[in-house]
């Protein structure tokens, strides 16, 4: 995976997605083969060193939140990495603002709702500004608005040249982003390429128990259709509107 690339990993439960991700910051070391992060073999360094570069937001926020306040939760990692106080408070303000958590600054992270906890874990990771951001199921428990917001965060991260790895079941969420798509099944990579191409292969998707995104399904059912599939609902709406206008002219 190259610098600045956005990669999504999909696949059935137990396909090995999370196991793969755990290799990127040295939580797991390969028993066969090698994993290089920024030219460094993960077996030659520590998880703490690698984590400075590779930030992983795990699936379940309850597995990491422990501090007495939201504020100190975000500070935790930065303190571990030895940031100076000025930078810490600067990054803290940015992260809490960005994820709309400012009003909870002094509250316990344990009283937040599921979606807020999830956002807090993302804030914790992005606060230390890692070069590679890995998100394990970021859309679980988020409402439509927050998903929209997450999509914006992706765009922002992409524009700053971060390498992003997304592990997700949420094909509807991935479809508009159009990342490089890696499909895993039974511990192996079964496909790797452009989202639009892989998502068109029904047989492959069925094998990995991935459903096709609705917009692509709609597109493949249309008889006279545009050259490329709709990437979002608005595109589909515009096309349908345009078609109606064309028919009325006729």
């Amino acid at each position, binding site marked *: 995976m190259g610098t600045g690339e956005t990669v999504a990993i999909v696949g059935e439960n137990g396909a090995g997605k999370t196991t793969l991700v*755990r290799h990127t*910051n040295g*939580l797991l070391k390969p028993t066969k083969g090698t994993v290089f992060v920024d030219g460094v073999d993960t077996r030659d360094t*520590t*998880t*703490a060193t690698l*984590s*400075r570069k590779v*930030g*992983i937001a*795990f699936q*379940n926020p*309850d*597995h*990491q*939140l*422990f501090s007495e306040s939201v504020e100190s939760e975000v500070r*935790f*990692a930065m303190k*571990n*990495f030895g940031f100076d106080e000025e930078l810490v408070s600067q990054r803290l303000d940015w992260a809490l603002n960005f994820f709309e958590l400012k009003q909870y600054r002094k509250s316990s992270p*344990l009283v937040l709702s599921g979606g807020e906890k999830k956002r807090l874990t993302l804030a*914790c*990771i992005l606060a*230390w500004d890692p070069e590679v951001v890995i998100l394990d199921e970021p859309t679980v428990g988020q409402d439509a608005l927050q998903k929209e917001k997450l999509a914006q965060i992706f765009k922002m991260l992409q524009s700053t040249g971060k390498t992003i790895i997304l592990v997700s079941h949420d094909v509807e969420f991935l479809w508009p982003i159009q990342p490089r798509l890696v499909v895993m099944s039974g511990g192996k990579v079964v496909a790797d390429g452009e989202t639009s191409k892989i998502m068109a292969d029904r047989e492959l998707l069925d094998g990995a128990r991935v459903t096709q995104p609705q917009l692509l399904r709609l597109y493949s059912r249309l008889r006279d259709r545009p050259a490329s599939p709709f990437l979002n609902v608005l595109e589909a709406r515009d096309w349908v509107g345009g078609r109606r206008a064309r028919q009325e002219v006729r």
Partner: protein
Amino acid sequence: MYWLSGGFVFRRVVSPFHKLDPRVKLLVSMEFFVLSLLASTVAAIALVLFGILLVATVAKSLRRIGRTIAFAGFFATFIFVVNFLFGLGLLNAILYSFRFLAIISSTSVFFVTTSPDELEQIMKWMRVPRDIVFAFVTAVRFIPVVMLDAFQIMDAQKSRGLEFEKGNVVRRVRNMVPILIPLVVNSVIRSGELAEAMESRAYGSTPKPTSLYGMRLRWYDVTVAVVSVLILIAVTLYIYHFVSFKV
């Protein structure tokens, strides 16, 4: 840690020992326990340990019990060193540390081969109050779950730059806080959820609920029980008559 923890956790295996009635498994385990207390020579305790390992082999669980022994070995070494240094003699020091190993592994044999369901049946058979049985069996059942939780939490915190092995003793203890708080909080939440789930499944609505599976002593179980008791008597007689308290 994970490797070690397997030594006391049940795993479904098809073996002649697993098939036994849980009461017989408990009996065998207790007999070994008693024998390890009675054995007063290095030769006798070595014989008891050998017997435990033999049963473990029959139960196809030698590796798992080996883990228990490896773990207990650490404490056994400590016992050996202390007893030896306090002048109890080499043979006594060996005897005490071996006895410790035998006691631990004899209980491990029972827990590794008895499922939580069987444990529940045994406790009911002993007329332990139902709520206590339920609490105990649930605790046993949750050990693997909580362990998995602990490892996931450790991974999450390590990914946030936490280094357990860094610093002095005080620092290391403080490093455990980010692990323990989520672990305890999760367990409390889970127990609350379990209570609600049990209540919505009518737990406690009948004073005497029936069981789907009961325990039944078959010929196979009786034979094993009788033979094991005979061996216990024989070995006890051997220890007391022929060795006569000699150390």
